[in-house]
């Protein structure tokens, strides 16, 4: 049972406030902000209490999404609800930010009104909600010349039009009917890697958590069939085909997915509702099908002047021609003060962040099969041999587009029965580093 729901900006501005049961006053909003900003580092912020009022909140898009409730409520339910609410707001407003919430507050009030009645969650299905929501979203996207890049010169079909702009999937679902009514469907395979590599180069832990997300902009939904790799198998015992099977440990599906063709043909059938939904979630532990994408060869020594020399050689083990686009950040912890560096290419940069005691090496572009190196010289006051222990670990954050670590692929994406209008289908793969740590 939810007593109130409110949304605060990170500065504590009231963006949305809705009282469902009239049990507590609106002064709890300021109270919440005071409490959440006064927390010290080791206190868990998720649940806070003031007398009989319990605050449960999530942070998404830089905003506090708060629900007040009573003590015996299920935290799983409230947190799942708040997450679902953020997803709905994202679907309806296009993106999650202070600005988009501010611009669309009427829409959000309307949503809240339909989603929760008297503190009880009624429905969060966008299929049902679309019948009730009347307000149009106000898009906060600034006009950009890049939007025109889809239109070829003199209307000619160019290569570029086969690639959707990265902002294509961040628009409100409902505006589609007036803005040309482009019926599009995005299927994203997103994987997150949690890797720990020991100081001797041995893979100590490798977990992959993946999900297939469908974002649908089609007003009328028809059945969709997603074909996965035929050799896809779940669990250790059930191996299919020869050789390189795509294997996951555990797998769960959205309740709307029909699995009657899954066992034999690895086809997921579903009728996607408008907006974003996670169709399938899977995880794989400790048994990567391929080598980890990055290897690091560090050499750490001290020179005569008492400086710490860190020589880092970083190799990307992805197949050649695949390039890693997004910046790779590399951190190593230490308490040093002065940094000088030699990097292998001018477009890279490195800086010392005294706050987090880390050296951050930014690599904007890293083609597969290549190797980069950097030499960091650090001046450490009061350097002793024990401080060598303090160096490391190295953490990498990266984004690998068009690659899945498990090897999961989407064979085909079919909409049936045949759509009246041209429906564009996009399949995107990406692998993020949730946590990629290399010990030194």
């Amino acid at each position, binding site marked *: 049972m939810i007593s109130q729901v409110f949304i605060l900006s990170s500065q504590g501005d009231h963006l949305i406030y809705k009282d469902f049961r009239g049990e507590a006053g609106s002064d709890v909003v300021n109270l919440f902000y005071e409490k959440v900003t006064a927390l010290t580092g080791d206190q868990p912020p998720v649940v806070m209490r003031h007398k009989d009022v319990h605050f449960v909140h999530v942070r998404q898009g830089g905003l506090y999404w708060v629900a007040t409730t009573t003590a015996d409520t299920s935290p799983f339910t409230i947190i799942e609800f708040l997450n679902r609410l953020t997803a709905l707001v994202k679907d309806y407003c296009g993106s999650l930010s202070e600005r988009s919430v501010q611009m669309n*507050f009427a829409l959000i009030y309307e949503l809240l009104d339909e989603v929760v009645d008297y503190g009880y969650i009624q429905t969060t299905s966008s299929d049902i909600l679309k019948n009730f929501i009347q307000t149009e979203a106000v898009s906060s996207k600034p006009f950009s010349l890049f939007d025109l890049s889809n239109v070829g010169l003199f209307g000619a079909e160019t290569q570029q039009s086969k690639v959707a702009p990265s902002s294509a999937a961040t628009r409100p679902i409902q505006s589609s009917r007036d803005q040309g009514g482009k019926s599009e469907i995005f299927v994203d395979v997103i994987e997150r890697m949690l890797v720990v590599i020991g100081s001797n180069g041995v893979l100590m832990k490798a977990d992959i958590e993946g999900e297939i997300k469908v974002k649908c902009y089609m007003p009328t939904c028809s059945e969709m069939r997603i074909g996965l790799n035929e050799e896809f198998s779940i669990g250790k015992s059930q191996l299919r085909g020869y050789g390189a099977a795509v294997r996951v440990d555990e797998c769960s599906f959205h309740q709307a997915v029909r699995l009657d063709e899954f066992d034999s043909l690895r086809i997921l059938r579903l009728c996607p509702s408008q907006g974003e939904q996670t169709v399938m979630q899977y995880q794989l532990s400790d048994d990567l099908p391929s080598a980890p994408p990055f290897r690091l060869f560090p050499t750490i020594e001290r020179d005569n002047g008492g400086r710490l020399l860190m020589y880092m050689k970083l190799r990307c083990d992805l197949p050649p021609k695949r390039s890693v686009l997004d910046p790779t950040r590399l951190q190593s912890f230490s308490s040093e003060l002065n940094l000088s560096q030699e990097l292998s290419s001018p477009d890279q940069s490195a800086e010392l962040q005294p706050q987090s005691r880390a050296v951050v090496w930014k690599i904007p572009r890293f083609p597969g099969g290549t190797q980069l190196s950097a030499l960091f010289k650090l001046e450490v006051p009061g350097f002793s041999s024990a401080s060598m222990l303090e160096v490391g670990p190295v953490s990498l954050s990266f984004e690998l587009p068009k690659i899945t670590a498990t090897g999961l692929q989407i064979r085909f994406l079919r909409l049936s029965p045949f759509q009246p209008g041209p429906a564009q289908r996009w399949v995107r793969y990406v692998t993020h580093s949730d946590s990629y740590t290399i010990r030194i």
Partner: protein
Amino acid sequence: MPYIGSEDTVRDLRRVLSNPNVQSDQLRYRNTILKVIRAMSQGVDVSGLFSEMVKACATVDIVQKKLVYVFLCSYATLNPELSLLVINTLRKDCQDPNPMVRSLALRNMTNLRLPSLVEYVEQPLTAGLRDRAACVRRVAVLGWAKLHNLQTNSEIDAAVVNELYSLLRDPDPVVMVNCLRALEEILREEGGVAINKPITHHLLNRLKECDIWGQCEVLRILQRYRPQSEDELFNILSLLDVSLISPHPPVMAATLSLFLSLCSGLPAVGLAALERVRGPLLAACGNTSREMQFTALCHIQLLLRSLPGLMGEHYKRFFCGYAEPAYIKQRKIEVLVELVNDDNVAILLDELRGYCTDVNISTAHAAISAIGRIGRSYSDKCLEILTELLGLKQEHITSAVVQTMRDLVWVCPQCSRTVCSAVEGCEAEIQDSQGRHALLWLLGVYGEQVSSVPYTLEVFIDGVRSEASVGVKMELLTATVRLFLCRPAETQDMLGRLLHYCIEEETNMCVSDQALLYYRLLHCGIEETRKVLQCRRSDPSLGVLIGRPAEPINQWSYIFNTLEPLRPGAIETESATIGGSPEHMTFDPKPNNDLSDTLSYSFGKTVRSVTDTALQCTDSSSDALTASVSAPLSLSLSPALSPEEFEDLWLQQQALHVEQGPEKIKAEENYVYMEEHVQCPTIFRCSPQSLQAAMQLVNIQTLAFTPPHTLPWRVYLYTNTQNKHSADTCHGTLILGELLYTGEEIQKKSKDEENVGVEARQDKREEEREEDTAEGRSEKERVKKNTAEKGIKVTLKQQPRDEKALKGFLSVLTTVLHALSSEK
């Protein structure tokens, strides 16, 4: 926060709203209303616009209607009279052919929260219950709950309640769930909606139609149902099995909660359910939402209390990612400590070592104290890491390591040698008072093992004037006196200086009083002082990490799936052996503690009063206790006995016993063996903590015990007695004791049949005893067997012999046991 110039804003808005040109232009009208709502949600008081907004309500534009309703519902309670004007519009809307308009009107009618409007609302609500459109029925059903809460003291209309019950069969699942919610609120005084067999089975059959929110609600309400037969129970359980492994964490948690409440009498089924949710819970730990991860982690901690091996092989899932927030890291570290076993300890410690240099200081401290707790079972490896960390010479790390070592030594005294050599020379790095406190305690207690202690203490004493912390000063006093006892030549001078400063110049009462106390104590002679300050150096009864007993599920199932486990420190307070931080509080060997237990030893005359006051602090049962301590007998914990010594003594005497036979032993001069039965069958359910606390109040030290609810239940304890009768020949005796409670199968089968089971249990005990005799454990006076058979068997061994003291001790023990079992 009201904006500056909010009055201007309101005035401007009013002018625009009442402008007929704006009113005729729908888009401009709507935009103005939008501005009003925006100002409202920013905290501007726009209640003055109420009458203008009421007018704006009468429109065909649904978006505008919705906006106005948002406004009206917020301010209706301030303007009850004007709100009457809205009711007409709303009632008209309730007749609208569009179901969306009908439901909107009905919902906002009930959201106005005005008791004066109830009479106008009832009729449309009744009509709403029979509406064709499900969305109107949903609103109407909850509307009755809102109405009821507006006027809680009024009579409940039985017809409405009946109608709501019949709507449980509504084809729309949301209407059904809303009916449950509404009935639950309306019938709160009667204990909520009636959950009988037909309703339960109806709800269970329709569970699949509901969305996850509905399922959670139904599962929660079904917790009240008690199946009539075991068959029915298992039918329900097998129906629920699918949702137990649901990919949606809320459904999974609600189902497990229901499982645990249904199977409260069948622990084995409960444990099987816990095994079953392992997969979904682990998946929730990998959820993209940090908050969901945190919730899952907190609940995993609960589950581990009953099934410590549940996540053993998945320990890698709890490794921290570097970008995770501190609160998740710390929970993960707590979970990791629970998962240690022989196979993974090396990898786990290696991982934890990496966290010790975390940028976030509290995370680093959590990791260090986690290593210390693993050290209770794997002391060598952990001490190696801790010593290595000292080498970093980082202020906060050194302080945390010293505190951790202090706690470790307190539990595992065998580590003292390594710790002593490690802490040598790290006093320069420690700046905070807690760290210095810990260091001083270590230096004082193990002063004879560290060669440089006098120099270290001298530095402290020289700086005592600038010392801010009272705790550190008091610890310094104790440490210096202790050191003086073992190394007088080196310490005498500085002790003199310290005492002089503390007595003459110190302004704090506690410090100067303690200094005075030590000063007078030293006057009494070195032996007296030694007796006082020879404190307990360890408390091995705190137990090891590995193989800790599993708690029964009932101990935590009532807080499962509530906000309770997410609160900071919620898990730790439940059982003191689990937490990381509270042991600093609870088991911190503070000078005060030492003092009280040693005082009762040396100041013989005051012993009675000390014990008495201590007892009176406890509870109602203290009266009985004090009465029983009427014999001038005093018990004391010192000299302390380590578990090894205890074991040696116990076995050695037993060996004697076996060789020579009981009669001879009994006659022997300086050794008594005695068995007695105390009638208190419920004692074995008492938690180890409370037992230990109660025993310590009367100065009996419990050394080891089996967990509660396990059979046979055993406690080993010891104490020292001084008999004050013969004051001139003040000789103490050492008493070792064992409490044994057996009666296994019967107890497990039927908990509630306690009275019926007594005879059966007695037979069982006979058998047990046969076995015991066979192994030569307790071939004691068979004569006594007939006299007192029920309850706990107490075996006592005393050395040297002193029957009177033994009897006195027995009476104290009996009273404590009775007091404890009557509390239950």
